[in-house]
Structures are given as C-alpha cells and as structure tokens.
C-alpha cells in the first residue's frame, strides 16, 4: 500500500475512533437522563433529581469532548479525502449538512439550558430541554449512519456525465434500508455504554459505602436499560444486520467469519486465528452448521467463502476484520450474561449486597467502549477495499496533493492533542465521580479536604 494512502486512512481511523468514545456515552446518557428526569418529575423524588444533576455534569464534560473531536471529522472528508468528496459529495454532503442544520443547532441551543437553566426554567420546561438534547443527539447519530450506509450500500443516486454521483431520490438515500438496522444496532450499543457506565459508577459507590441511595438508583437503572439494550443488540438488530451483510456484502461476511472456502453446513468459528497463507483457521473452536443456520436459516445451506470472490475484492485486512468482529460478538454475549444475572439478582433483592457482582459491574465499564469500537471497525474494515461499495475504491479517494509527510504531520498533531484531551477528560470525570452526586451534607468532609 502506498504511504500516503496508509497515512490518510490512519488519520481518519484514529480521529474517528477517538471521537466516537464520546458520542456513544453522550447518546446513551441522554436516554438515561431522560429516564431519570421523568421518574424525578413523576415521583418528586430528590434522589432522582440529584442523580439527574450528577449525570448532567458528567454529560457536560463528555459533550464538550465529543463536540471538539467531532468538528475535525466534518473537515476531513475534504482535507484528506478530496477525490471521494468530489465524487460523492453531492449526496453524502446532504446528510452531513442536515446533521449540522437540524441536530447541532438544536443540541447547542438546548444543552446550555439543560445544564445551567434549571433555576430559570420550570421543572416541565427543564424536562423538555433534556428531551430535546436526547432527540438532537440521536438525530445526529442517524445522519451519520445514513452517510455511512450510502458508503456501504449506495442507493438513490445516478452517475453524472463528469463521473460524479448525484442524487436521484432523496428518500431512497435517507431511508436506505442499510441505515435502518445499522442505526438500531448502533444506538443499542450507545445505550449499552451509557447503562454500563452508570451501573459501574453505582457499583463503585456501593463498594465504597458512599451515597448508597443514589448508587442504588444508578445500578438499578443501568441494569434494566443495559439488559434491554444488550439483548436488542443481538436480536433483532445484530442478527438483521448480519443477514444484510450476507446478502449485500457476501465477501465481507466470509472474511468476518474467517470462511476461506465456501461449503454447505458452514461452521461458526468461536475462537481461532485466521491463517491467510494456508487459507484456514488455526486452532479452531467451532459450532458445526451454525453459520449456515444464522445466515440462511438452514443447517446445511451453502455459504460462499472467500474463494468465491476475486482476490482484489477481498477486504484488505482480513485478520483485523475477523478479530474486530469476534471481539464485538464475544463482548456482546458477555454483556447479556452479566446484565441478565444482575437483573435476576435485582429482582430477588440481592444485587446491592452481592459484592462479587458489583465488582464485575464496576470492572466491566471499559468493555462496551471496546465493543462499540470493534463494531465500527468491523463495519468499516468490512467495507474495504471500497470507499463507496462497488463504485469507488479506497485507494482512489484520498487527496492526491496532500503528501504523506504533511498528512503525517497532522496525524502526529492530532495524536498529541487527543492524548492531552483524553488525560484532561479522565481527570475531570474522575473528579466529578469523586465529588459524588450530592455536595451537602454527605461530602462536607471532602470539600473541607479539598480546601
């Protein structure tokens, strides 16, 4: 691969991956905050109100980081991928502009009112600002997914005389069938991150014997939402997306599953290392016939392997794609297991005293981030070698006049900048968690110490 192409790809991959650490929590927490706020309003319960305010603070820090790391994404289509922008901008520019016009204006107006306007607004009006922030962030998610869906499965376009893609049907483009399932799947992932972060903080407080009343609300809300979202994550959203990949990107499916040779009754590989040289999985742990069942709903259905496709159409990095996909699925299964067990314990009234489970909940916090990242890597590595599936190859899309040296300069710049942002963000989030959900009277001791 030529240097410039590799660096431009790393540039986008790095900035997008780092960016998405924040919106997934923003979108997940936005939903959870609306839930907490609704209960607070209905029951007039101060604990729920304090819980809302506490998560509002966490949300605020996270939101700022999401905004500042998001702006570079909008620019990079032009700076680093200008050939792609010239080719497809008439179409994907629509959803990106709509994100700005519909979602960002709404969020930017309401976030300030939500975070700092509680005293100026009535409780109902304040609820509406929380709801508006939720709608804005979830709308924003849809426009990005619709943009990605066009790159995965282009619809609603025609090829103009100059070779560029132009819009032929707005609704076909915006309501791309690929976008529907991918959006549902992605938003379940965001809700899972939000829920697991909330229960982890609750578990941390319970294990530390601090703010127990609030901690129980966090754990309870997190477990219930996390259980629903992690189940929906697999069925129907993940399952339907898998079938879509089977139908529309069969070569991607073969690479994700590590199926080098097509066969009837294809097994599902649970563990093992893809060996491209030999065209097989090393040290496989498999479930016979399962892949055929999952993709075509028949145990002995024939599933096409990588050998059914010309090598130049194979995703470029098969091992990384395979591992991303397997990490995502493995973690997803793990989330269902622990949230179902937690829900059972909660139902029996034993969860808040089950220290072993609280430890697990606390330590699981980083894993939804890994699963979401791995999921996006699966989607985007799986799209390779195409930038717009079947229409433009990634190698043809980058900015030819931006040299490898200049691209590396800015990549290093972003790495340094984001390292500092990450450290600052973690530091400030940790301070909020340490301060806890109420400032008085429980934390008098702590503020005295801080002074």
């Amino acid at each position, binding site marked *: 691969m030529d240097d410039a192409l590799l660096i431009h790809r790393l540039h986008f991959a790095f900035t997008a991956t780092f960016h998405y650490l924040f919106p997934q929590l923003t979108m997940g927490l936005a939903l959870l905050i609306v839930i907490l706020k609704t209960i607070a309003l209905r029951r007039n319960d101060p604990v729920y109100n304090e819980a809302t305010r506490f998560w509002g603070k966490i949300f*605020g820090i996270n939101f*700022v980081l999401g*905004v*500042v*790391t998001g*702006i*570079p994404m*909008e*620019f990079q*289509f*032009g*700076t*680093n991928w*200008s*050939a792609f*922008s*010239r080719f*497809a*901008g*008439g*179409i994907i*520019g*629509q959803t990106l*502009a*709509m*994100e*700005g*016009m*519909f979602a*960002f*204006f*709404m969020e*930017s*107006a*309401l*976030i*300030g*009112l939500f*975070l*700092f*306007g509680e*005293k*100026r607004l009535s409780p109902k009006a304040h609820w509406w600002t929380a709801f508006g922030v939720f709608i804005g962030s979830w709308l924003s998610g849809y426009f990005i997914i619709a943009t990605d869906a066009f790159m995965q499965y282009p619809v609603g376009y025609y090829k103009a005389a100059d070779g*560029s893609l*132009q*819009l*032929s049907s*707005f609704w076909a483009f915006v309501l791309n069938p690929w976008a529907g399932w991918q959006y549902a799947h992605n938003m379940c992932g965001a809700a899972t991150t939000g829920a697991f972060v909330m229960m982890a903080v609750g578990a941390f407080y319970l294990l530390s014997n601090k703010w127990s009343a609030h901690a129980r609300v966090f754990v309870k809300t997190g477990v219930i939402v996390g259980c629903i979202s992690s189940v929906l994550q697999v069925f129907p959203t993940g399952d339907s997306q898998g079938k879509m990949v089977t139908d529309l990107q069969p070569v991607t499916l073969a690479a994700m599953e590590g199926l080098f040779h097509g066969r009837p009754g294809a097994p599902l590989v649970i563990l093992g290392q893809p060996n491209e040289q030999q065209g097989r999985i090393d040290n496989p742990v498999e479930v016979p016939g399962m892949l055929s069942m999952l993709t075509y709903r028949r145990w002995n259905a024939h599933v096409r392997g990588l050998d059914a496709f010309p090598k130049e159409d194979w995703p470029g990095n098969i091992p990384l794609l395979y591992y991303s996909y397997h990490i995502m699925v493995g973690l997803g299964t793990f989330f269902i297991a622990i949230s179902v067990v937690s829900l059972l314990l909660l139902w029996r009234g034993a969860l808040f005293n089950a220290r072993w489970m609280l430890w697990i909940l606390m330590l699981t916090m980083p894993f939804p981030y890994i699963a979401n990242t791995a999921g996006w890597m699966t989607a985007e590595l799986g799209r390779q070698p195409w930038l717009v599936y079947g229409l433009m190859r990634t190698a043809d899309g980058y*900015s*030819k*006049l*931006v*040299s490898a040296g*200049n691209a590396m300069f*800015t990549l290093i*710049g972003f790495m340094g*900048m984001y390292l500092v*942002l990450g450290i*600052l963000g973690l530091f*400030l989030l940790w301070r909020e968690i340490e301060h806890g959900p109420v400032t008085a009277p429980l934390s008098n001791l702590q503020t005295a110490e801080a002074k």
Partner: protein
Amino acid sequence: MASLWFWIVAVMVVAYVVLDGFDLGSGAIYLLAAKTNDERRRVLRAIGPVWDGNEVWLIAAGGTLYFAFPQLYASSFSGFYLPLMIVLWLLILRAIGIEFRAHIQAPVWQDFFDVVFSLSSILLAVFFGVALGNVVRGVPLDSSGYFFEPLWTDFKLGPQTGILDWYTVLIGVIALVTLSAHGSYYIALKTDQDLGRRARGFALLCWPLQFFLTFSALVATYFIRPEVMTNYANHPIGLLVPVVVIASLAVMLWANPKGKEKLAFIASSLYITFLLVGAAFALYPVVLPARDHQYDLTILNTAAANHGLSVGLVWWTFSAVLAIAYFVFVYRTFRGKVQVGEGHY
C-alpha cells in the same frame, strides 16, 4: 439554482463571522480587558451560553458547501490542508479553554486556560482573515481542479504562493482588529463597571486602525486583483457596499462614546457583513480564483446537480427557520448584562 446556493453559503459564512466573531473577539481582548477573576468569569458568562451555537454556523456552512459545491469543498479543503488543520486544533484548544476553566477553582489551572482561550482566539481571528485573503488573491489551481499550498514560501505574490504572504497576512491583521473591536462592542453591551468601560476603550482604540486598514486593504486588493472591480462596474447596486461600510464605521465612532452599546454592536455587525458581502459580490460567479484564470472554480463547474440542490432547498429552508428560532430563544433567555453568581463559568 447554483447562484442561490452561492448566496445561501455566503449568508451562512457571514452569520458565522458575525456571531462567532464576537466571541472570538471577546477572547482576543480577554487577557487585557478582563483583569480580575470576577471580570474574566463575566466575559465567559457573556459568551458561555452562545459560543457553541455560534460555532455551529461554521459546521453547518461547511456541510452546506459540501453538498451544494462538492468540487469546491474538495479542492479548497485539501488545498488549504495545513491552515485548516491548525484551525481545527485552535478550535479544540479554545473550546476546552472556555469549558474546562470553571471546573477547578485553582489560580494556576485558571490562568493556564485563560491564556489558552485568549491565544487561540487571537490566532483563529488571524487565520480566518488569512483564509479570506487567500480566496480573494487566488490559488495555484491547475487543470485537475486541485492545488496545494505550503504555509509560506517567500511571502511574495510569486507563481508559488504560500498561505501566508504579505497580502494575506494584512487581511489576517484586519480580521484580528475588526473582530477585537466587534468583541469589545459585545462585551461593552453585556457587562458594566470597569470591564464594560475598558471594553469601550478598546473599541475606541481599534477604530482608527480599522479605518486605516480597511482602506489599505481595498487599495492592496485592487493592486493585486484589478478584476475585483468588474462586478461593481457592471452592477452599480454593488456601490451600496462601500456606502454601508463607511456609514457603519461612522456610526461606531459616534455611538461608542455616547454609551449606545447596542447601536455600536449592530454597526460593527453591519460593517463585517458588508465587507464580506462586498468580497462575495466581487468574486461572483467565481468561488475560488486560480492564478491562471482558465482554471478558476466557479459556481457552474463546482455545483452539485439540480435535483439535489432543489431537494436541499426544501429541508434547508425548514431547518434554517428552526435554527433562527433556537437563536432567538437562547439570546432572549440570556439577555441583559451578565452577573456573577448563579450558574457555571
């Protein structure tokens, strides 16, 4: 249709510069105008609830440019690669400067973010001016429709121009002075006591510089690109632009010492608006001039196809009405002079 979108994007850019301009300008004068912690918090509270929304105009204008003129977006963003990346870094630093300062009440922490916020605001103002200077001066586009400029070469207007040369730096300085004045008028409008007085003094100090630089920029622009006068010669309605520019300069000078803060701020907004409209009027229908005019990018060779533009017009109009409604609501909610005490920052 493409002409309509040219003016829509132009209006969005103007909205961005006028709105984010005052919070950039507030940042530029921040260290000098606001001395105490209390004063600094008042500046931040004056821009705190609105800066993020103001900045969305940049993102929205970028997105609109992307789908309406994909070829222009592709050429200009990749050609201005280095300055755009620097702008992105500055935007990041500035945002955390504003938002993270209030989290810890320690002088060392706050001093650090004060400097980050102010320096990044100053540099952003300069870079936006430089960007405008580049667009007016023209860039080395070739037959492929692309170009790439290094940050600087020899600061002359030779065949191999850099982003920075004497002309673009001049426009950058004008942008800094203009936005500093604009920010001063805003702070004067939103605050009182010493801080408000100092902001008014700053605006007064900027005025002769603005006056002198505006005219030197006009002369310099005519000197390097005489064809900027063509549209003005053919469409005399364009002569409204210099009339409004001079009138708003005069109003600023008159209103500021009299304490008519709102009028001065409006005059400053008009002044910025008409400088930019004047530039857009001079360029039209060219959107990015090449050093060699046969490679000029115009609205015709960069616009998306008609169906996309028509559909876009429907949702854009709808969303623009919503956006304006949000702005009216937010600015009304946070109207009046800011007080310290309640709330964040």
